[in-house]
C-alpha cells in the first residue's frame, strides 16, 4: 500500500517538474543533462558503466547514472516508477514484459531514431529485434541475446566412456548417453531435467515440430502430439532416474548440480559461460555443443533490449544514448568483458576469444534455427503456471498427456483474457 502512495506522491511531484521543465527543454544541446540507466545485474554493471563513460566522452553535456536494482524488485520498481513518472530514463527490458509497457504507452518510440541514425535493424538477430517491435514501431534496441546449447562435463563423459556430444546428435544419442552416464553409486546423473521452459521443454517442443503458442497468440500447443513429445523428452529422463528429482533440483538448482559435477549434461544458455569459465574446477572439464535435434533443429531465443521511458524529461538526449547503446561500440565493450553475447552482428568475436576453450560459436550458429521466446498475452501470468501443472507429470503422478492438457487449458484461459 505504501508503494502506491509513493507512486501517487511521486506522480504529483513529477507532474510539477514536468510542467516546470517543459518550457526550457527545446533544442538546447549544451544544457547539462543527467540520465539514469537501470539494470538488474551486478555482474554486468561494470560493463554498463564502461559504456556510459564512453558515451559521456563523446557527449560531455550528458551524464549517465547507472542504477542496479536487485532482480526481485526490478519489475515492481519499474512499473510503479513508470506509472508515477519517476522511472529511470533508460532501462533494460525483457520480451515478456515488453508488450505491457509498449501497449501502456510507457516506452519512447525509437522508430525515427533508427532512421536518423541509420541503425541497421538487420544487424540484430531477427527474433530479438522483432520482439521489441510493437504495432510496427521500434521501442527498444537489442542489447544482447541468448540461445541454448548442451553444456557437458568432459570428465564425466570420459569416466563413463561416452563420446562427447557434437552437432550430429539426435534425441536418441542424448538419451543413450544419459543412461550410460548415470551412476547412482557415485551420485552422478546423466542430465538435469528440471521444469525449465526457456532452457528445456520449449526447445524440445519446437524440435518435435510443435509451436508452444500459436502465431496469433490465442492458444497454446502443449497437448498436441508434438507438445506432448517435447514434454515427454524430459519426463522420460526423470522416470528413468537419469536426472535428479524435482525436489533435489528445487533445493539445489540445476546449474549448481552441473557446477558440482553431479550431472553430466545441462541444456541452457550462453549466459553461464563466464561463470563456468571462472570456476577453476570446471574450466578445463566443461564444453558446449548444439542442442540435439528431434524432428528438426530448434532453440528459443530472447535477449535484453535497451528501452527509454516515454515520460523522460530529456527525450532527445535519451534517444542519443539509446542509439549509442544499440551501436557497435557498446556491443564491443560487452563482448570484450565477456559478460554477454552482444546482439550486434559481427561484434561477438571478442566474446568468443575471451573464452577460447569453450566452443561458444554454437550459440551464435543457433541464431539460424532460433525461434523467439513466446510472449503472447499476459506472459508473466501464464509462464508462472508451468511448475504447478507440469510437476505431476515430472514426478510420474499423472500421465504426460493429461498434465499437458490441463496445462494447455490453464494457459489458454489466461490468453483468452486479453
Amino acid at each position, binding site marked *: 500500500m505504501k508503494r502506491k502512495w509513493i507512486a501517487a*506522491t511521486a506522480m504529483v511531484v513529477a507532474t510539477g517538474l514536468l510542467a516546470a521543465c517543459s518550457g526550457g527543454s527545446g533544442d538546447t544541446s549544451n544544457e547539462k543533462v543527467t540520465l539514469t540507466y537501470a539494470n538488474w545485474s551486478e555482474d554486468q554493471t561494470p560493463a554498463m558503466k564502461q559504456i556510459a563513460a564512453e558515451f559521456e566522452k563523446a557527449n560531455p553535456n550528458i551524464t549517465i547514472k547507472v542504477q542496479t536494482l536487485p532482480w526481485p524488485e526490478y519489475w515492481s520498481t519499474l*512499473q510503479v516508477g513508470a*506509472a508515477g513518472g519517476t522511472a529511470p530514463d533508460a532501462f533494460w527490458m525483457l520480451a515478456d514484459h515488453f508488450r505491457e509497457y509498449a501497449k501502456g504507452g510507457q516506452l519512447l518510440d525509437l522508430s525515427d531514431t533508427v532512421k536518423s541514425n541509420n541503425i541497421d535493424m538487420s544487424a540484430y538477430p531477427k527474433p530479438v529485434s522483432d520482439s521489441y517491435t510493437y504495432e510496427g514501431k521500434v521501442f527498444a534496441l537489442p542489447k544482447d541475446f541468448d540461445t541454448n546449447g548442451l553444456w557437458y562435463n568432459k570428465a564425466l563423459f570420459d569416466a563413463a566412456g561416452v563420446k562427447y556430444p557434437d552437432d550430429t546428435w539426435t534425441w536418441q544419442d542424448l538419451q543413450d548417453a544419459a543412461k550410460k552416464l548415470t551412476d547412482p553409486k557415485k551420485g552422478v546423473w546423466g542430465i538435469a531435467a528440471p521444469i525449465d521452459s526457456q532452457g528445456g521443454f520449449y526447445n524440445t517442443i519446437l524440435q518435435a515440430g510443435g509451436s508452444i503458442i500459436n502465431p496469433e497468440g490465442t492458444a497454446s500447443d502443449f497437448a498436441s502430439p508434438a507438445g506432448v513429445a517435447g514434454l515427454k523428452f524430459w519426463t522420460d529422463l526423470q522416470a528413468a532416474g537419469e536426472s535428479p528429482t524435482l525436489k533435489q533440483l528445487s*533445493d539445489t*538448482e540445476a546449474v549448481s548440480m552441473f557446477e558440482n559435477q553431479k550431472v553430466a549434461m545441462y541444456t541452457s544458455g550462453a549466459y553461464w559461460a563466464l561463470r563456468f569459465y571462472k570456476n577453476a574446477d570446471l574450466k578445463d572439464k566443461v564444453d558446449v555443443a548444439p542442442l540435439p535435434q528431434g524432428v528438426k533443429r530448434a532453440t528459443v531465443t530472447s535477449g535484453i533490449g535497451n528501452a527509454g521511458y516515454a515520460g523522460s524529461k530529456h527525450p532527445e538526449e535519451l534517444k542519443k544514448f539509446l542509439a549509442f547503446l544499440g551501436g557497435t561500440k557498446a556491443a564491443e565493450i560487452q563482448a570484450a568483458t565477456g559478460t554477454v553475447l552482444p546482439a550486434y552482428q559481427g561484434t561477438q568475436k571478442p566474446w568468443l576469444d575471451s573464452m577460447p576453450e569453450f566452443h561458444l560459436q554454437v550459440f551464435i550458429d543457433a541464431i539460424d534455427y532460433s525461434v523467439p521466446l513466446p510472449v503472447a498475452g499476459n506472459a508473466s501470468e501464464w509462464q508462472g503456471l508451468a511448475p504447478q501443472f507440469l510437476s505431476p507429470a515430472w514426478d510420474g503422478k499423472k500421465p504426460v498427456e493429461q498434465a499437458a492438457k490441463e496445462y494447455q487449458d490453464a494457459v489458454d484461459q489466461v490468453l483468452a483474457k486479453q
Partner: protein
Amino acid sequence: MTNVATKPVRRPTGRRTGVSKPSGWWALAFIAPATIGLVALYVWPFLSTLMKSFQDVPAFGPATFVGIENYTTLIGDGDFWKAFGNSALYTAIILLGIPLAVVLAALIEQVGRGRAIYRVLFFLPVVTLPVAIGMVWRFIYNGDFGLLNYVLSWFGVDGQFWVADPRFTIYAFGVVGIWMGLGINLIILGAGLQAIPKALYEASALDGAGRVRQFFHITVPLLSPSIFFVTILSVIAALQMFDLLFIMLRGVNNTALTDSKTIVYLFYEKAFVQFDQGYGAAIAIVLLMVIMIATAVQFRLQRSWVFYG
C-alpha cells in the same frame, strides 16, 4: 487530575485564561505532523486501495469501475481459498510458539548473570536481514546436504526435503517463523515477568509450592496480559507472512510454491507480477477484514482467560 482533593484553584486571570479558545488551533498545529503522517501513510492508501478494489486497474492507463466483480471473482477463486488455508495453518503453527516463548521467558528470568546474553541471542534473528535468514534456513532444510538431515542421520532417521516437498513446506516455515518471532516475544514477556511481585513467589514457596506449580499458578495468570498482547501481535504478523516464502521458495522447481502461497504472497503475485492491481487490492481488503475479525475474536475471548490483577 492529581489535586482533585484540594480546594479548587482559582485560575489566574490574564494571558492564561485566553488560551482556552485558540488552544484548539494550537492543539491542531501540534498534532498536525502526526495527523498528516497518519493520513498520508495509512488513511489515504487505505482509501485508495479500497477504491481500487472496485476497479479494474491495468498496469498503465486509466482504471475502470467494475463494482464488486473483484470480490465475486475472489470468492470463486480456488487459489485464494488455498492461500487462506495456508495462512491459517501457518498462523496456527506460530501460535504454538507462544507457550514456548512463555516457558523460555520464565527460564531466562531464572538466570542470574548473563541474562542479557540470552536476550541478545534470541533477539538476533529480529535484527538479521530476512534474506540472510532465508539463505541459512534453506541450507539447514536442504534435502541432500542440509544440516537438519545430517543431524537426523545420527539417529538413523531418513531426512526429507523440508522446503521442496510441498507436504512439509508450511510446517518448515512455521518453525522458522516461531524462531524469528521469539526475540520480540521474549522482550515483551520478560518485561511482563519483571512486573510480577517477587513476594508472591516467596510466599507461595513458604506454603510449599514448587517451581512448576508457581509457574502455572503465579507466572502464567499474572503474565496473561503480556501473553495476550504477544498473541495479538503474532497473529497479525503471521497472517501477513510473505518474506520467508519470497526468499526461500525462489527458484523451486515443483509445486512447493504453488501449494504454499499465503494471502500476502497471492496479493503480491496478482498486483505486481500479473499487473492486476484491482484484484490485488480486493485481496488486501479481505486480508484486512480477516485480521480485524481475528483480533476482535481474540479480544472477546481474552475476557475468559486474561487476568488483570
